[in-house]
């Protein structure tokens, strides 16, 4: 027995994770766990948590859970970033060791892309898309909950790696053969592959769900060309997900099999070809960066029109350009490995195809600017992000074009020039876009605005901090500094620029602190939104009270114009005053279910067991998976009814019923 316990301790906490940082994190995590449990028990909130959140299938609540997860992950990824930057500012006295640094940049990249950007997108989709298209829910509410829990447990699996067993350390790209057991023993990379496989399943389901939602659930009259731009980007992004995630799944599974079951896909021996992994990974990875940026483009299209108080400029061109981006982004993946010798013909082809993407993207940029032209621009926080996004993203895109210039990429590949490029587009494009959307839709989610003054402070800290951090990194690239080095020799002139960069990172960190303070402050003191339409919006979600009732629309609106709500307001036919009590009938809504949560949990157990190759635990988890699936196969009790009287009462309490 004691030997078993010792074995357990050695496996779960090998000596290289018994370091002060990890132990501190362990302590913090356990403490916060204890506090949460204590609070829930004291307030008798367990039942509430289970009934209202863990088993919910309401897209609005799922959206909020995604949002909370994303902000937590932004914190985790951000703290990782600060650790990276601190080390790089102190090359002579590294604060964290090489092996810690390697784990930290890996989790930083992985978390930021898969567990911060993706869920933030899904948060906005869930919160806004059904409301914008005049629907009562997404196409498959239960699948939606499953997606969320698969994502959440996938994220949990990656995050516990930090404290149990050791984190992955091969970068977010996880190139073999370094990920093979020969070079990388221990559970770290297993965590990586399994958590991404589990979360990836959830993401694929979300893609299916929102594609069908946008295609089949629109309110009467909302033809494709009357959809808000955000919905268009949802549609195209969802389609991109369907095409992009399968190659990732295959690449991850192959790597995992190499590690656990002795196959020879990417090994040094037996004819394995690591480059095939690289090929499959970027077959996913390149579309992925557009998966994260297209929704941000969608947010900007809504935000810019609303705060310029003017119709979106060049709507058809915008639609055409997102479609073009969607198609083109599948044909460019080789630009991530121009330096793998696939030959001049291949490289030239993919260099050209990459450059082509600049054209539709440019169209969007100019259309946004011309949406503002002739408008009345209100500089709200959301709009500030939009305005800062344009130059930031254009510069990031331009440096992308430099990287796409094949011979130039031979020099710039994997240098800090590249690091600067992708933060420029990821932060300037994705993060700014999603934060803009969060500020924009916050009242719709929570019924109150975020404080504008604090919001602007956070914005300026982010924006200035961003340039201070990543501007110097372009120069570091030209000085030949390559990425993923935990420290560097002094003689290359890299030190000064790194110090500046680190200062910038802390400025951004300050921005994050202000943002979180803003959230907490506004919870209490934020301006309440009683109209449901705080920004004088243009699309249907603003026709509803904030937050929207469970059934969204008491009566489904009929759409006749592109900016449906704006149009209705112009014509004086707002839902608020046209709803009569006869219009309301009893509604059938999806019913809460514990299956998604249990399914996610079961997959988590499988993943955890596989990470340590404990097959009994895997079997237990697998039984859970099968049981959940069987249960839902035979479950015909999917719906509940909301009585018409209940709805009438709700609506008249909101002052939305005639008479």
């Amino acid at each position, binding site marked *: 027995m004691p030997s078993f316990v010792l074995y357990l301790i050695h496996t779960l906490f090998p000596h290289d994770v018994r370091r002060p940082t990890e132990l501190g994190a362990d302590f913090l995590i356990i403490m916060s766990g204890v506090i949460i449990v204590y609070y829930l028990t004291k307030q008798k909130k367990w039942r509430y948590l289970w009934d209202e959140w863990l088993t919910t299938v309401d897209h609005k609540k799922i959206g909020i859970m995604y949002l909370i997860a994303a902000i937590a992950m932004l914190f985790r990824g951000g703290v990782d970033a600060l650790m990276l930057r601190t080390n790089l500012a102190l090359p002579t006295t590294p604060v964290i060791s090489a092996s810690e640094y390697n784990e930290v940049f890996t989790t930083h990249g992985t978390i930021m892309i898969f567990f911060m950007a993706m869920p933030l997108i899904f948060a906005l989709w869930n919160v806004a898309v059904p409301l914008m298209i005049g629907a009562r829910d997404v*196409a*498959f509410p239960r*699948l939606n909950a499953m997606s969320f829990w698969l994502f959440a447990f996938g994220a949990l699996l990656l995050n516990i790696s930090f404290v149990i067993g050791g984190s992955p350390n091969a970068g977010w790209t996880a190139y073999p053969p370094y990920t093979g057991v020969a070079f990388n023993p221990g559970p770290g990379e297993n965590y990586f592959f399994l958590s991404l496989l589990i979360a990836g399943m959830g993401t*694929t389901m979300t*893609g*299916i*769900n929102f*594609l*069908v939602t946008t*295609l*089949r*659930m629109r309110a009467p009259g909302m033809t494709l060309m009357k959809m808000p731009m955000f919905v268009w980007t949802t549609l195209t992004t969802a389609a991109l997900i*369907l*095409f992009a*995630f*399968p*190659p990732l*799944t*295959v*690449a991850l*599974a*192959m790597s995992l*099999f190499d590690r656990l*079951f*002795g*196959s*020879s*896909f990417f*090994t040094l*021996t*037996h*004819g*394995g*070809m690591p480059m*095939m992994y690289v*090929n*499959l990974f970027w*077959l996913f990875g390149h579309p992925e960066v557009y998966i994260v940026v297209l929704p941000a483009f969608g947010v900007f299209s809504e935000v810019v029109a609303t705060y310029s108080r003017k119709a979106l400029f060049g709507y058809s061109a915008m639609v055409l350009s997102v479609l073009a981006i969607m198609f083109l982004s599948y044909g460019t993946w080789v630009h991530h490995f121009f330096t793998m010798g696939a030959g001049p013909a291949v490289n030239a082809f993919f260099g050209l195809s990459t450059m082509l993407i600049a054209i539709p993207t440019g169209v969007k940029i100019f259309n946004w600017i011309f949406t503002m032209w002739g408008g009345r621009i209100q500089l709200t926080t959301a709009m500030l992000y939009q305005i800062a996004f344009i130059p930031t993203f254009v510069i990031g895109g331009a440096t992308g074009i430099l990287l796409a210039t094949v011979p130039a990429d031979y020099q710039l590949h994997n240098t800090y020039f590249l690091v600067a490029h992708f933060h420029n587009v990821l932060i300037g494009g994705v993060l700014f876009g999603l934060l803009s959307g969060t500020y924009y839709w916050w009242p719709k989610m929570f019924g109150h605005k975020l404080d504008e003054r604090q919001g602007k402070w956070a914005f300026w800290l982010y924006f200035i901090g961003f340039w201070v951090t990543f501007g110097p990194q372009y120069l570091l690239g030209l000085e030949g500094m390559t990425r993923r080095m935990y420290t560097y020799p002094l003689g290359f002139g890299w030190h000064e620029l790194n110090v500046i960069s680190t200062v910038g990172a802390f400025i951004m960190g300050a921005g994050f602190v202000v943002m979180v303070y803003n959230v907490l402050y506004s919870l209490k003191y934020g301006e309440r939104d009683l109209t449901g339409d705080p920004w004088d919006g243009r699309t249907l979600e603003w026709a509803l009270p904030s937050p929207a009732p469970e059934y969204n629309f008491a009566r489904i609106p009929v759409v006749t114009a592109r900016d449906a709500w704006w149009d209705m307001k112009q014509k004086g036919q707002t839902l608020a005053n046209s709803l009569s009590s006869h219009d309301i009938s009893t509604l059938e809504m999806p019913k809460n279910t514990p299956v998604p949560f249990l399914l996610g949990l079961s997959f988590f157990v499988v993943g955890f067991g596989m990470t340590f190759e404990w097959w009994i635990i895997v079997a237990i988890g697998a039984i859970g998976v099968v049981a959940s699936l*069987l249960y839902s*196969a*035979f479950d*015909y009790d999917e719906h509940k009814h909301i009585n018409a009287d209940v709805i009438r009462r709700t609506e008249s309490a909101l002052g939305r019923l005639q008479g």
Partner: protein
Amino acid sequence: MSVPVAKEEMEQHLPLEFADEKESIKITGFWMFLVTDVMIFGSLFSSYAVYRTSVAQGPSAYQLFSFGPVILETVLLLTSSFTIGLSIYSMRRQNKQATIAWLIVTLLLGAGFVISEVHDFVGYVAAGATWHQSAFLSAFFILVGTHGAHVTFGILWATTLLIQLIRRGFTPVTTRKLFTFSLYWHFLDIVWIFIFTFVYLNGKIV
């Protein structure tokens, strides 16, 4: 149950599985799922194509494959694709007995396919051709194995359907489920045709 459906569609007496809008949306959703599956198999096929010649010290495709069991498997699967088609045909004609009977036949044929394939694999492994041997074998086993796993899953799925059909008869839900299952099954048949052609037949071309 009142279902708002466009006039012209009402007149065309929709089959049950499409009659209910919500169930019909699920069929669209299932097509989208098939899209992801096409991409999964696409990735596996491209790996196989690339790894085909990386035989290391292991056997080559030519040495490994023999036609006998493969032809048997192909015929079994093609026939099962036919019988599930008949099952749907019977379902459209509201013939519960025939629907169930054809579904059972389909399941049996599918089971035959899986048994034959597993037998095949066991033979390879016994002869030392494990997927550790070479990248080619890894790619072969993962491609064909993924297909086999899909078929196995399909059999389990259809078994639950069988129970639901017997217990509940034709409802919008059961018919929709059976219809999506048939889509899945035909899809697997198509994948197999490509495996048959690109893996087995191609392996015999020198």
